[in-house]
């Protein structure tokens, strides 16, 4: 068990960041696929493509929300213990 007052909050933030990194990887896959030469003709996309894309972004959103919560928890902890103003 850690003796640092905010160690648990820091560990949770680290974990949530890493989860967010993994979740956002899936969205990057869709982002880089955008064809955006204005003169290009766009072929149709495979069935379920937009559904998959939205699912990936939803997962990223959940992971991001968890990261923000963990970030605020660490901030609060550090303020409580006088590590920051």
């Amino acid at each position, binding site marked *: 068990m850690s003796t640092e007052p905010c160690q648990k909050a820091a560990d949770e933030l680290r974990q949530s960041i890493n989860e967010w990194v993994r979740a956002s990887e899936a969205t990057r896959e869709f*982002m880089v696929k955008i064809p955006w030469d204005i003169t290009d003709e766009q072929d149709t996309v495979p069935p379920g493509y937009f559904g998959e894309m939205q699912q990936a972004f939803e997962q990223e959103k959940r992971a991001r929300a968890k990261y923000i919560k963990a970030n605020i928890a660490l901030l609060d902890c550090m303020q409580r213990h006088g590590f920051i103003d």
Partner: protein
Amino acid sequence: MKGQAYYILDGVMRHIDEALRFYRPRLDPIPKGKNVSILIESNDFRRILLAGDFQIFAKKAILRFERHGGQFMGDGPCEDEKDRAMRAAQAWEIATEEVRRFMVDKPLEPEEAIEPKPPEYLEEMDAAFEREAKAREEYIAAMTAWFECEEGSS
């Protein structure tokens, strides 16, 4: 009408040449001064002109061409849907660029120091992601409408 179009576009040939040089990789080679009617009547060329650095001039030329009864060929039944999809795609691309700067590239190393971000940073990040989500929704809606239109008209 082609004669009129030639007349209108007489003064823009240097801009067309410039456009062709710039966009050469995207177009089949077109000999200078020849087959211009094919070129000016194509929607692709209209888009290319408007995407270039001489938009005001191109818009004027296009307007004059249309006022004199000229029509761009290739206006398919789904042209509006396609234009909307292209605009939505570009808007989404810009929005994703904004969120990328907030995204962490790789997992943190166990020994890596960690510091919480200030609330202002989180708010800014949230706003950027909100814009991205809206742009993505419009992109999906526009692309779906375009595909449905193409399917319905084929």
